[in-house]
C-alpha cells in the first residue's frame, strides 16, 4: 500500500518587543531568573493585563507577509489549564477571532516551489520556564522543579499552517523559510536554540489517493531543523507501520527523543483538552483600522518568494538565484544598486556572491562599513567589460576601493593597474617582442602552438603586465600569420 504523509506545522514565534505583551517588563534573553517580573506577569492577585500596541503591529505585519486577511474585529480569550509555569493558570490567547486568517506562504524545496496554506496567526502570552531538576531534565524523574518567570508574558505569535505539507524535507524547508521570513521582518531573533522560535508538527498518513484525513498526532520537542525532519520521518514510519498491521493510530501528543530516534507518547487522553475558552473580560475587543493596516502593508520588506521570482525574471540562473536570495540584506542591496547602475545581472551576481564577499571578509569589516557603492561596483565591472582591467587587476582594485583608497578609476590609476587596450600600443609591443624572438617564431610556425603562450608572456612583461592578454593573443596571431 502506498501511504501519503499529511503534515501541518505550528510555529510559535517570540516577539522581541521592548516589553512584554501585557505588562511593561523587559523582554530579554539570558537574564538572572525572576528579574524581569511584575504583578501582572507573575499572576499576583489584583493584577491586570494591558495590550502592547507594538506587538499588535508586528503580528499584523507577520499576517500581511503571509498574505493573510487581517480580521477587522479580534478578541482575546482565556485558555484555562493548570500548570506551575502558567501563573494565572490561564493563558491569555485567541480562540475563534484571531488577528490573521487564510494566508499562504511559498517555500522552495529542491528547486521547486510549494505553496503552503496558512490557517491563522494569533497572539498569546508565553509561559514561564520550568527547569526540572533530576535525571534527563524531564518532569517524570524530577526531584524538584525551578520556575523562572522572566519569559512569562512575552508576546508569542502562533502560526498554524494548513496540512499542505507532504514530506519531512518539505516540512524542514517550510520551517527554515518561515524562520528566515520572521527574522527578516525584524520581529524576532527566531533562534531555535534560544527558544525564540519553536515548531510542533501534526502528522497523519492516508492511503495515496484518499481524500480523507487520517488521525493526526502532534509531535513536540524538535529543537533543530534536522531533528524536525528526522522526527517527522520517524513518526511517518511509525504510523505507516501501524497502518500496514491494521492497527489504529491514537490521537495524542508525542515527544521526540533525539537520542533514541523515536517519538514517545506523552499522555493518553480521551479526546482533546477542554480549555473552557471564554472572551477575556479584562481586555476590550480589538478593531484594526484599515488605514493603519495599509500603512503596515506598505512598510513590509520584499518577501523572499517575491525576491526569488524577481531575480529569476532578471535572467539569473537557478543557482545564482538561490545563492543571492540566501545572502544577507546588505549584499542583496548592493546587487540591486549595481544592476540599477547598469551592470549585467549575471556578472554582478557572480562578483557580489564571490569576490565582494571575499574582499570584505579579508578587510575584516562588514559591507555596510566599507565605501563600496553600487555605482562604484558597476563602474569597476564596466572597466573589466571594456578591457580596461584584467579580472585579476579588478580584484586588486576592489580591495583598494574597500580599503578606502578611492573610486575604482582612482585606485586603478594610483596602483597602475589599468590594462592597456590601445591596439597601436599592443601592435607596437608585439612587433618589438617578435623582433627579438626569431627562434620562437620559427617553432610556432613549425606547429608548436604552445609557444604562443610564451610569447604572450613576453609581451605582458614588455608592457609591465598591463596589456589586455586577449588583444595580445589576437595581435600575435595576426602578426605571426
Amino acid at each position, binding site marked *: 500500500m502506498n501511504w501519503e504523509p499529511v503534515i501541518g506545522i505550528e510555529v510559535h514565534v517570540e516577539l522581541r518587543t521592548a516589553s512584554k505583551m501585557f505588562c511593561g517588563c523587559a523582554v530579554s534573553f539570558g537574564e538572572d531568573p525572576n528579574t524581569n517580573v511584575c504583578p501582572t506577569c507573575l499572576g499576583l492577585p489584583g493584577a491586570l493585563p*494591558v495590550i502592547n500596541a507594538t506587538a499588535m503591529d508586528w503580528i499584523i505585519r507577520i499576517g500581511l507577509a503571509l498574505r493573510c486577511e487581517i480580521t477587522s474585529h479580534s478578541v482575546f480569550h482565556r485558555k484555562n489549564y493548570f500548570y506551575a509555569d502558567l501563573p494565572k493558570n490561564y493563558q491569555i490567547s485567541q480562540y475563534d477571532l484571531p488577528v490573521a486568517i487564510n494566508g499562504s506562504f511559498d517555500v522552495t524545496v529542491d528547486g521547486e516551489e510549494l505553496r503552503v496554506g496558512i490557517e491563522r496567526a494569533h497572539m498569546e502570552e508565553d509561559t514561564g520556564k520550568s527547569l526540572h531538576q533530576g535525571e534527563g531534565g524531564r518532569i517524570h524523574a524530577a526531584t524538584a522543579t525551578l520556575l523562572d518567570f522572566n519569559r512569562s508574558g512575552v508576546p508569542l505569535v502562533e502560526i498554524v499552517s494548513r496540512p499542505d505539507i507532504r514530506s519531512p524535507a518539505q516540512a524542514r524547508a517550510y520551517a527554515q523559510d518561515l524562520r528566515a521570513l520572521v527574522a527578516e521582518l525584524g520581529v524576532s531573533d527566531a533562534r531555535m536554540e534560544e527558544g525564540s522560535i519553536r515548531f510542533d508538527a501534526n502528522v497523519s498518513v492516508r492511503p495515496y489517493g484518499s481524500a480523507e484525513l487520517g488521525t493526526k498526532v502532534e509531535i513536540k520537542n524538535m529543537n533543530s531543523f534536522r531533528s524536525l525532519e528526522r522526527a517527522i520521518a520517524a513518526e511517518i514510519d511509525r504510523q505507516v507501520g501501524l497502518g500496514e498491521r491494521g492497527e489504529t493510530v491514537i490521537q495524542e501528543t508525542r515527544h521526540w527523543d533525539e537520542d533514541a530516534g523515536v517519538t514517545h507518547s506523552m499522555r493518553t487522553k480521551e479526546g482533546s483538552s477542554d480549555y473552557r475558552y471564554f472572551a477575556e473580560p479584562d481586555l476590550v475587543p480589538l478593531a484594526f483600522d484599515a488605514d493603519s493596516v495599509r500603512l503596515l502593508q506598505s512598510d513590509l520588506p520584499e518577501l523572499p518568494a517575491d525576491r526569488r521570482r524577481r531575480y529569476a525574471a532578471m535572467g539569473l540562473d537557478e543557482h545564482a538565484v538561490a545563492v543571492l536570495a540566501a545572502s544577507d540584506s546588505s549584499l542583496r542591496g548592493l546587487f540591486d544598486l549595481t544592476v540599477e547602475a547598469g551592470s549585467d545581472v549575471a556578472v554582478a551576481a557572480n562578483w557580489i556572491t564571490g569576490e565582494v564577499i571575499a574582499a570584505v571578509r579579508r578587510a575584516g569589516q562588514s559591507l555596510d562599513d566599507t565605501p563600496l557603492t553600487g555605482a562604484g561596483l558597476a563602474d569597476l565591472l564596466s572597466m573589466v567589460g571594456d578591457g580596461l582591467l584584467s579580472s585579476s587587476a579588478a580584484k586588486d582594485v576592489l580591495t583598494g576601493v574597500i580599503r578606502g583608497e578611492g573610486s575604482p578609476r582612482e585606485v586603478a590609476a594610483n596602483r597602475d593597474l589599468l590594462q592597456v587596450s590601445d591596439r597601436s600600443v599592443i601592435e607596437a609591443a608585439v612587433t618589438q617582442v617578435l623582433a627579438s624572438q626569431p627562434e620562437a617564431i620559427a617553432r610556432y610556425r613549425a606547429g608548436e602552438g604552445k609557444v604562443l603562450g610564451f610569447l604572450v608572456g613576453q609581451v605582458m612583461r614588455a608592457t609591465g603586465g598591463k596589456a589586455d592578454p586577449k588583444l595580445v593573443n589576437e595581435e600575435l596571431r595576426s602578426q605571426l600569420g
Partner: protein
Amino acid sequence: MAGHSPGSGSHETDDLTIGEAATRLRSRSLTSSGLLEVVLDRASMTEAELHCFLTIDHEGARTAAAAADDRLAAGRPLGQLDGIPVAVKDNFCTRGLATTCSSQILAGYRPPYDATVVTRLRQAGAVLVGKTNLDEFAMGSSTENSAFGPTRNPWDPSRVPGGSSGGSAAAVAIGSVLGAFGSDTGGSIRQPAALCGVVGMKPTYGLVSRYGLVAFASSLDQIGPLGRTVSDALDLFEAVAGPDPLDATSYPEPLPDIRSHLDRGMEGLRVGLVEELGGEGYEPAVSAAVGDMMARLEKEGAEVSEVSLPSFEVALSAYYLIAPAECSANLARFDGVRYGLRVGGSTVEEMMALTRAEGFGPEVTRRILLGTYALSAGYYDAFYGQAQRVRTLLINELNDAYRNVDVLVSPASPTTAFALGAKTQDPLSMYLADVCTIPSNLSGHPAISVPIGLDPDGLPIGFQVMAPALGEPRLFRVAAAVERLAEFKARPAMVGRS
C-alpha cells in the same frame, strides 16, 4: 431588639461626616491625629463585638495623620480627604499590609504593590486605618463567608451587616472610620450599605480602576465608596475615580462635574419604580418605605411612574452563571506555587488540589465548581453563552426604559438585616438577597443606596437609585434629594455606648 438613638454621641468629634471633619481640619479646630485617636477609640470599644476589621494599621495611620497635620498646619491640604480616616475592603492590595480577601488561602499574604485606588487615596492624604472584613473573595451577601469570622450589624449584633462589603459598611455605620471603600459585583456595596444604614454607591463600570482589586468577576466588579452621607460618598468617589493606564477596561475620559448637581432638586425628573423588584419576598416595611419616598419625590416635582423590566426576573440566574464562570478562572491562580497557602503533595497536581481544598471555603468552592461547569465543553452554549445573551437583552431593555425615565428606583434589598445563620443553610435563599442590585452589575450602570428609615425592629431600610451608564450626575442629584427628604438621622445604639 435593636436600639437606636437620635442625635450624636458624647464627644464633640463623634460621628462627624467627612464634610464636617474636613471643614474643622482646615479651620484647625480639629487635628487629623486627634480625629484618628477618636476613631481608633471607637474601634477598640466595638471591634470585639462587631469585628469590622481584619487589620488595623495603627502605626501607618498615625504616620499618615501626622503628615496630614503638617500639611493642614501649613494651609496646604491635598484635598477634601486630607487627614480623613478611611478603610478599604481586604480584597484591595495594600503594599506590605496583609491582604487576605478573608480567605485561608491568602492568610498572611502581603502584596508588593498598592491598588490604584489605594495609591490615589494616599495621594489625597487620606489616613488608611485598616482593612475591613468581607465574605471570602467577595462571594456572599452577609459577610458570614469570611474565613476569619463574621462581622455583626451595629444596629443589632445578632444580625448580619450584609455582604460582601459588610466590614466596610459596619465600620462606617459605627464610626470607626469616616468613610470606606468596598467592591460591588452583585450588590456587595449597596446591600450592606442598606442593611447598615449608610450610603453605598457602585459607579459606572470603568470609572474606578480595578488594578489591585483582587478579581472575583472581572466584567462585573467595581470599587465604590461607603459614607454616612451622599456628599461624603461623592468626596470619596471623586478622590479615586478617573482613567488608569494600568486597567484596560478603565474609561478614558475624566470625571465630569457632579457636585453642582447635588442641590438641583427633583423638578422635571422622571422617576420609574421597577415593578419586578417588589411584592412577594419583600418585607412590608421596606416596600412601604419605598412607596412613601416615591410619593415625597412626586411632591418635590418629579414625574413618577412604574416601569416593567421583565428581564430582571432572569437577571439573578444570568448573574449566577456569569460571575462563577469568571471567578473560576480568576481564582485559578491560587495554587500554592508562588504565594499564599501551600499544602504539600507528592506531585504538583496534588499540591495544587490539596492547597485549594484546604484554602477555599464552601461558598467559594461551590462557585468555582459551578463556573467551571458552566464553561465546559458541551455546556458553554446552554449556560455561559446563554447567560451573556440574556445580559445583552437586559442592557437593551434598560436602555429602552431610559428613553422614558431619567432614573429607576427600587429597594436596595428585599429585606432588612437578617439574623446570623438564618440563610447559611440555603445558598439559594442567600442569593436572592441580591435580586435588586444585580441588574446594575450586569448592565455596568451606576447605582446607589441611600438610608431612608428604620423598620419596626429598628433596622435600616435602603432606597436604591439607578441611572444609565455615565449617569453619575443625575444619580447623585436624585440621591441627594432622597436624603434630604428622608431626614435619616438615626444612629446605632452602640454609638451611644462608646
